[in-house]
């Protein structure tokens, strides 16, 4: 099966076309094709995964196009990392799609929605399978446009379209350095084949300087795509999209792309200590600032969004630790996919019931929506790092590795963030599910088609961690590791106790503050700090008022003005000048040239008028002239 792994992205991509052209005639209005295709991709993924577990590895390349002496290929590289990602992406996508059948049932553009989901999935799978930088880039950008399409799905509202634009343009800003990083690698390595580049980078064939530059530039793309500081601003706004899309974006496709890319090109990053440090620092900053922002959100999806940003920070920080953190970071990506998808789908279920995103309009839903409640609890606990759920294993591994690598800054931030994570998730649960219902109408549990994916994901969120747990032989670290040696997870009882303890503190604090509903958020007593967080560190304001709006209006207007007035003025000036010149020439022509001609005529006339008096008609006078003439001539001739 592994030889046919290329089918995994191709099937959803083909399904997109089918849905666009024939989706409306299908009984499930397009959802059937989409789910079938993703299901098929999932089945193949599992088969491939099993084979990869058995030690198989497939790497194939087909020529794509040539330009000069550069050769580009379409290829597939099915190693452990790719196999894991296949399963995660197809599984999460499949569950999200099933869930969407219920969630989107009464929403507009149902068919189109599934077409975009299929394209989204296919693009991400293409990115995962890619063995060529440019093939990766294609998947990378397609993922971006799909998220644009899906975030802006309810485009009747301006805010949603704004959010879609913001997501695309922010990530595209990161893509500029990413593309340049690809250029650097292309020329430094002389090939775009990722496997070859990794070998060359590891073998020292690429200079350290080039590797550093390439890695930093590539990471720019990851900063955009994986919502790292300072380009994380698009992700919370991306909540404008339908909730299942958020689940997909946050768990399996969009934001995972950045982390996956760093993992895939880790050979390049590992070759540069500076780049790794940069990755770790950005990751640490991101995890902390995002966790702080999650504290003050009222929108349940925004809490989750910031928590995603924060968790992505964990992954980046882990990858920044170098080969030691490689497995830990990607393992966190793996576990996070399940519990974050679960949390989003759970939030979607809540929103579906109360028709509001605001936690201040929820409360007491635990009795009305038991399945959602319990699954949400499992997801939150996994996120907060409660053993033995998935998040505990992966997060703990990161914390342990940070400590062992003596990256104490990262370690402290990671530990602190663990505390904050437990706190804000407790807050979200307390506000949503406990207390009394504060919203409109009577919420009911969601239909079966939505709760089944929740339960499935809850199961995965509970057990996925064991796959990478330290005591499991041949687990995740066997499959996903950097270098020849697998870097098995280490279990450190002290660390585990510390992180669980901190999580418990966070939960306790959260419960203490939010166990009972208060009209005024207790955190408001932080004063200016709360305002600072509430305004998202003023980053949005800086970007919007400092960059976007000035470019959008005054600068653009100025440029247009220069074109219309100055440049066009010069052109029109030439035109006017030419016309003036023409008029002048015309004047000269009329007065001088034609004037001379006319003068000659007039002068002739005058002369004639004068001479005509000679013509008296008097023959005798003529004769006098004749005679005088003869006389004169006679005199002259006689003189001569």
């Amino acid at each position, binding site marked *: 099966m592994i030889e046919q792994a290329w089918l995994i992205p191709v099937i959803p991509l083909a399904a997109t076309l089918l849905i666009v052209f024939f989706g409306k005639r299908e009984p499930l209005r397009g959802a059937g094709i989409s789910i079938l295709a993703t299901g098929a991709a999932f089945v193949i993924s599992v088969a491939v995964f099993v084979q990869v577990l058995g030690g198989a590895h497939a790497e194939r390349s087909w020529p794509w196009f040539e330009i000069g002496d550069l050769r580009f290929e379409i290829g597939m590289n099915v190693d452990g990392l790719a196999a894991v990602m296949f399963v995660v992406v197809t599984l999460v996508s499949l569950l999200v799609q099933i869930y969407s059948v219920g969630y989107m049932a009464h929403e507009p553009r149902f068919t189109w929605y599934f077409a975009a989901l299929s394209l989204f999935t296919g693009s991400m799978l293409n990115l995962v399978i890619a063995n060529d930088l440019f093939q990766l880039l294609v998947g990378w950008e397609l993922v971006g446009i799909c998220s644009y399409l899906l975030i802006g799905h309810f485009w009747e509202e301006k805010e949603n379209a704004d959010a879609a634009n913001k997501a695309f343009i922010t990530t595209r800003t990161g893509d500029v350095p990413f593309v340049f990083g690809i250029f650097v690698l292309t020329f430094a390595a002389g090939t775009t084949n990722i496997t070859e580049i990794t070998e060359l980078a590891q073998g020292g064939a690429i200079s350290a300087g080039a590797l550093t530059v390439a890695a930093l530039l590539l990471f720019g793309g990851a900063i955009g795509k994986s919502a790292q500081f300072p380009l994380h601003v698009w992700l919370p706004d991306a909540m404008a999209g339908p909730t299942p899309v958020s689940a997909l974006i946050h768990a399996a496709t969009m934001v995972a792309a950045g982390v996956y890319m760093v993992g895939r090109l880790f050979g390049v990053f590992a070759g540069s200590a500076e780049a790794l440090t940069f990755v770790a620092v950005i990751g640490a900053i991101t995890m902390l600032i995002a966790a702080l922002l999650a504290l003050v959100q009222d929108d349940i999806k925004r809490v989750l969004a910031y928590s995603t940003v924060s968790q992505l920070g964990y992954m980046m920080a882990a990858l920044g630790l170098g080969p030691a953190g490689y497995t830990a970071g990607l393992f966190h990506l793996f576990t996070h996919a399940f519990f974050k998808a679960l949390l989003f789908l759970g939030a979607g279920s809540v929103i579906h019931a109360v028709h509001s995103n605001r936690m201040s309009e929820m409360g007491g839903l635990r009795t009305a929506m038991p399945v959602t409640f319990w699954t949400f609890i499992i997801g939150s606990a996994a996120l907060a790092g409660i053993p033995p759920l998935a998040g505990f294993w992966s997060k703990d591994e990161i914390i342990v590795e940070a400590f062992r690598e003596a990256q104490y800054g990262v370690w402290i931030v990671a530990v602190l963030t663990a505390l904050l994570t437990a706190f804000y998730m407790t807050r979200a649960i307390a506000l949503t599910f406990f207390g009394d219902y504060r919203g409109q109408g009577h919420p009911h549990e969601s239909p079966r088609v939505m709760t089944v994916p929740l339960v499935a994901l809850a199961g995965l969120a509970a057990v996925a961690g064991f796959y990478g747990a330290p005591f499991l032989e041949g687990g995740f670290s066997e499959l996903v590791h950097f270098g020849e040696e697998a870097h098995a997870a280490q279990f450190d009882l002290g660390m585990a106790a510390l992180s669980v303890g901190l999580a418990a503190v966070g939960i306790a604090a959260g419960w203490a503050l939010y166990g009972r509903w208060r009209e005024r958020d207790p955190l408001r007593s932080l004063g200016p700090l709360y305002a600072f967080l509430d305004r998202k560190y003023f980053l949005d304001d800086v970007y919007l008022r400092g960059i976007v709006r000035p470019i959008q209006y005054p600068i653009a207007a100025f440029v247009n003005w220069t074109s219309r007035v100055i440049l066009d003025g010069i052109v029109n000036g030439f035109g006017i000048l030419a016309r003036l010149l023409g008029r002048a020439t015309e004047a000269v022509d009329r007065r001088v040239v034609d004037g001379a001609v006319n003068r000659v005529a007039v002068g002739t006339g005058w002369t004639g008028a004068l001479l*005509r*008096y000679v*013509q*008296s*008609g*008097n*023959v*005798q006078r003529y*004769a*006098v002239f004749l*005679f005088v003439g003869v006389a004169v001539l006679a005199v002259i001739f006689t003189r001569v």
Partner: protein
Amino acid sequence: MIRLPLVLIFSGALFAIGVYGVLARRNAVLVLMSIELMLNAVNVNLVAFSQWLRDGLVAGQVFALFVITVAAAEVGIGLAIVILIFRNRETINVDEVNLLRW
């Protein structure tokens, strides 16, 4: 034998009278007559020189005959014109006959 200068003086005077007549007289008939005078002055000159040069071919006399013939034709046409003018304009005063005026 009349001496040549005398003849020339005579013919010159005759020619001058003719010129005067042509230029001064207003009567068309008299103008024509004056022209005849001038022509005859020329004839006298021609004959005189012919004699003086003792020309074997007597070209001067021959020319004089030609001139006489031409003068006769000229007078004929001239008088005819004068008569026509008189018929049309009831005058033969050349001052009044100025159709070719500007």
